[in-house]
């Protein structure tokens, strides 16, 4: 008896309902505007973490350069908003009106060519996803076709994130430099700085995240997802079975990049700026730890992991700033050494069995002899 679509089983549907209820009902009711905006900011990192679950957990590709894609998405949105904020009327005191203020300070007299498409909203939306995916495609096809994987891939993606930061900081006139793109005001005339706008954006963000989660679940449960797992476990065997391993790796890497880019764009909208501090090595690795804490094999775990680590970060660095780095470092080591499957592993090993036991006791029906057999069969199949 299955009412759900074939790619979701009941447990997943329940988990999805819990996440949706938490994001759409519990947080908006329980938190004030400031805290809700903060949660919205954390949730933008969850996009990256979900992408990493697909890349790293299922595909076995650890990318330490997700900040690059997060940044590309975020900068795309920021460029659009900045251009809207720098209309000719708003910037008439500049020596060249109509270009962003930081360009004017850096003696630029016309808009660089790559800023031009960001005058229009629909192309911007496409570019936010397409540019990072194109980069991921380029990086992925250069590397996976040559069978680079594992450690080398991680180091090279990390280097790319580092290069991007240096480039953004160095090219002040084109990118806003170390401060990033700030002072963003309106989205098609709608002021995004007001409380009501932030409230609406939180919901847009939450719904998008749930959409991304559904998309990830669809990929995971399709035949493609099976191949990804097979590839992670025994790459050569998949290759000898006639599959093009590189193409699957490129696909999942691009998928992760697209998720990260959406997160980046939502970050810009909710927080109101984009800066190189969200692109480099440190944020990229932190995003990996969000995913690892949640459990690298659990799509939902990624969301809880992100929320938990960020909550700990905010509360610890508010009260004990020195302790935060120690705590984060310890968390890295503890997760790797003791909980390789993160929160999801703890849930599966300790919490889920006791819940199952409670339900089993209650629903145990002596007239149904097949019940225990079915249960055992399900357990064996897992």
């Amino acid at each position, binding site marked *: 008896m299955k009412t759900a679509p074939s790619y979701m089983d009941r447990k997943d549907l329940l988990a999805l309902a819990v996440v949706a209820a938490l994001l759409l009902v519990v947080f908006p009711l329980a938190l004030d505007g400031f805290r809700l905006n903060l949660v919205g900011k954390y949730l933008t990192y969850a996009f990256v973490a979900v992408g990493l679950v697909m890349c790293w957990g299922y595909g076995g590709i*650890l990318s330490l350069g997700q900040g690059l894609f997060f940044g590309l998405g975020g900068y795309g949105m920021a460029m659009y908003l900045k251009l809207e904020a720098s209309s000719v009327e708003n910037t008439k005191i500049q020596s060249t009106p109509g270009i962003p203020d930081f360009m004017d300070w850096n003696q630029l007299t016309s808009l660089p060519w790559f800023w031009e498409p960001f005058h229009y909203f629909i192309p911007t939306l496409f570019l936010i996803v397409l540019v990072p995916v194109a980069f991921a495609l380029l990086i992925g096809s250069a*590397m996976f076709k*040559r069978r680079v994987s594992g*450690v080398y891939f991680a*180091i090279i993606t990390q280097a790319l994130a580092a290069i991007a930061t240096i480039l953004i900081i*160095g090219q002040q006139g084109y990118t806003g430099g170390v401060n990033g793109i700030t002072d963003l005001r309106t989205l098609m005339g709608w002021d995004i700085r007001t409380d009501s706008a932030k409230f609406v954006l939180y919901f847009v963000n939450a719904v998008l995240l749930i959409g991304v989660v559904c998309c990830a679940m669809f990929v995971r449960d399709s035949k493609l997802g099976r191949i990804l797992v097979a590839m992670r476990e025994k790459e050569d065997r998949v290759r000898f079975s006639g599959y093009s391993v590189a193409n699957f790796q490129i696909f999942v890497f691009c998928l992760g990049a697209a998720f990260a880019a959406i997160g980046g764009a939502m970050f810009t909208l909710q927080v109101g700026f984009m800066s190189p501090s969200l692109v480099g*090595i440190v944020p990229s690795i932190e995003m990996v*730890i969000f995913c690892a804490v949640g459990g690298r094999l659990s799509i939902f775990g990624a969301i809880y992991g992100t929320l938990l680590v960020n909550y700990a970060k905010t509360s610890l660095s508010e009260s004990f700033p020195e302790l935060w780095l120690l705590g984060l470092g310890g968390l890295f080591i503890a997760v790797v050494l003791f909980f390789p499957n993160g929160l999801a592993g703890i849930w599966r090993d300790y919490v889920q069995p006791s819940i199952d036991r409670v339900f089993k006791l209650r629903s145990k029906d002596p007239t149904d002899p097949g019940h225990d057999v079915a249960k055992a069969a399900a357990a064996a199949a897992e």
Partner: protein
Amino acid sequence: MFGEYSLGDLGSIFAMQGFAGLILFSVYLLMALGLAIIFGQMGVINMAHGEFMILGAYVTWLTSVFFTEHLPSLFPIYFFVAMALAFCASGALGMLVEWALIKRLYKRPLDTLLATWGLSLILQQVYRSVFGPREVGVTLPDWMMGSLPVTDVVEVQINGLFVMGLTLLITVAVFFMIFRSRFGQQIRAVVLNRQMAGAVGIDTEKVDRLTFGLGCGIAGVAGSAFTMIGSTGPTAGQLYIVDTFLIVVFGGAASLFGTIASAFSISQTQSTLEFFLSGSMAKVITLLTVVGILMLRPQGLFTLKVRR
């Protein structure tokens, strides 16, 4: 970009920048040697390598403070003491880390990356709490100050020469150790075939620990040398870690010769470009070139055939 300089000027520029590049090369090489031993030979990704280097730098600073206050007469030679202490301190910490952390993770290289990143965050915070967030610089003895004129426009700094000599010495020592000594033979045997090495009676765990300690110790000496040309802060190690990894990967992970070649080419490219472009663009172009070459030739410059 060469238009406004005469040929003679260009020669001097290249000589000066080449010399600056050699100093950069020395520091890169010292850092990369330790990492090449740990990553290339053992397959462990030690993201805390920069922090081991900074430990060496802080030990050097402490030694210099100690000598100024208690043994001012011996101050001119404090540096040699400091280097030995830096090697021991970083090496000991390295062995401790191997025993407590790395030992459990040899089968999972990507996880060593995350765990050692955590370690690097912890060490950074410890340095910040113990030594303060401000950068510290050591006082050099008088004989290391100043510069030697080579021609009327080209001159070389003595501390730079000293760092180079030191690098040469350490590189030779490492090569001797790896390729000529009995311990080096054991390291290479474990790299080539761990099980066979164990079967013929090599204590592979002990070799692992000593190898890791050796790599970290060399990082400590690198940190010691680093204090002569720059100041040390709690997060200085992180600035170099990506470059160092790229050097090791670019050189071909298991090849020590490759590490030297790639450290040389990267540092020379960067310092020559630095004169004509801004520092950040020089770095971007150098790193992008390296990444581009690595995408076309993932095995790096030199490869060593290893039976896995």
